[in-house]
């Protein structure tokens, strides 16, 4: 009899389909799923039996309220939301830009002493820290902060969007700056350009179309966020939706929500088309 392989054929044969780490990861995911479902009281029966209430809510929305007063309120809300999101993205971009420039890691210059390296790292870490704080606090929390500080209205909402946008854009900008081809930048430095000049003429032009695309996308996200910010009193159409909800004026809610969806879809399409052109 020919000699057999030393190990007995196990599950899946000689070449295991799943390695130990993968199997372990699957187990962990399964465990987390069960634990989380228990924690939130996941109940399909409740979901399906809740249908009646949803049906009542939806049927009360129809026909939507298309009276002149409601349409005017919707228009004002939409415009306010639009203005908040636009200014938020623009101010966010303006704040993000210098922070991103500082938060971009340049290839260490040859012949730098360790003290110089350390000093050069300080602005980088400060900028990254500020951007992280801006970004990791959700815009709705920023809105709460500004509403408490400045009172109700669209202005604190716009500020919240601006701060959050600055954090998101700053991070994405600096990633764009870092992934730009570095050879043209090196070539500039090798012919005596200063760090600032190499950045302005070498790195920045290569990142600009990426910046524009990211900013448009952030504006898109801001429109969506701005509809929510009204729930904490920070202006926009969300505030109207909340008020109508509290008054059980569901036909008006239907008009407001419908208009919101249309505007979000329109801005989405517009920004996607512009971004496609930027990228080509």
């Amino acid at each position, binding site marked *: 009899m020919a000699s057999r392989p030393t190990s007995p054929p196990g599950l899946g044969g000689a070449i295991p389909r799943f390695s130990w780490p993968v199997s372990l990861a699957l187990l962990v995911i399964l465990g987390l799923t069960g634990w989380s479902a228990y924690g939130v009281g996941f109940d399909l029966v409740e979901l399906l039996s809740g249908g009646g209430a949803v049906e009542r809510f939806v049927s009360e929305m129809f026909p939507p309220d298309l009276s002149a007063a409601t349409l005017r309120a919707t228009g004002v809300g939409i415009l306010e939301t639009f203005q908040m999101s636009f200014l938020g993205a623009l101010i966010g971009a303006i704040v993000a830009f210098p922070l991103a420039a500082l938060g971009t890691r340049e290839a260490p210059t*040859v*012949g730098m002493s360790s003290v110089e390296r350390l000093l050069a790292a300080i602005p980088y870490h400060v900028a990254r820290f500020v951007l992280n704080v801006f970004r990791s606090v959700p815009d709705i929390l920023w809105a709460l902060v500004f509403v408490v500080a400045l009172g109700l209205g669209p202005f604190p909402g716009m500020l919240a969007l601006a701060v959050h946008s600055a954090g998101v854009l700053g991070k994405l900008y600096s990633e764009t700056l870092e992934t730009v081809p570095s*050879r043209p930048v090196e*070539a*500039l430095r090798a*012919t*005596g*350009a200063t760090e600032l000049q190499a950045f302005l*003429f070498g790195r920045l032009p290569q990142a600009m*179309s990426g910046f524009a695309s990211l900013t448009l996308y952030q504006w898109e996200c801001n429109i969506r966020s701005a509809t929510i910010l009204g729930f904490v009193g920070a202006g926009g159409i969300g505030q109207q939706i909340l008020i109508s909800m509290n008054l059980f004026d569901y036909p008006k809610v239907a008009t407001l929500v419908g208009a919101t969806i249309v505007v979000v879809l329109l801005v989405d399409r517009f920004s996607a088309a512009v971004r496609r052109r930027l990228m080509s």
Partner: protein
Amino acid sequence: MGQRLVLDGVGVRFGDAAALEGVTLSVKPGEKLAVIGASGAGKSTLFRTLTRSVALGSGSVTVGGRNLYALSWRELGATRRRVGTIHQAYNLVPELSAGMNAALGEVGGLGRLATLRTLLLGPDAGLSRRVEGALQQVGLGERVRARTADLSGGQQQRVAVARLLVQRPGLILADEPFAAVDPVTAERVMAALLDLNREGATLLVNLHDVAAARTFPRIVALREGRIAFDGEPKDLTDEMLAGIYEGDEKRVQHEEEKLGSRRREPMRVAEGRDGVSAH
């Protein structure tokens, strides 16, 4: 105008691998020489030591009588401004216009205010005239405003030459400038480099084409980071060449392709092997 170069026992390491070892070389002002060697022999690294773009492991590099690696930032900037580089991959900024890229040859000499002015409004009248003249000289006079990314490879290499003409450097480092361009452009680029050399600039050219290297009065050959030959082309025998390119299969392939057809193939060097893409 030309600059004297002295390399004394230069060694450069990338991690464990030695890219250059004990390289000693002296180049007179206004001299022109060709550097040859297999891929990964250290040709590009040698050039990068001349602009202090790579850390030096041992030895010293002297450019124009000054120890390059002991200069302050300001002095290094001033020294680099006199060094012009031209590469196989052009290394232009694709989003800027051809004219702006050519003008960047001068950017190191601009003060802070002039830098901002140039960024927002473009080069001033004097620089613009020189840029136009330089682009005319390389046959791209009417493409000043063209986006560099829209130009062909050969045209981009000519823009890179125009950048040199604007810069008027005392030392020119041409790193495989003909590897990715058509023969007509190659000739044109070569003529422009030789013109600058005749006007006094020291000229160092990395070449993959030994026949082209033989037209230079002096050839330096690198093999595995060391100088394998330094002298006139007539002293470079075929046996020496075989030793210099020994084990470089790409080279053999390249030669075979050339025997089959005279078309120039752009040379592709594996990432990191040429010492430039390793950073």
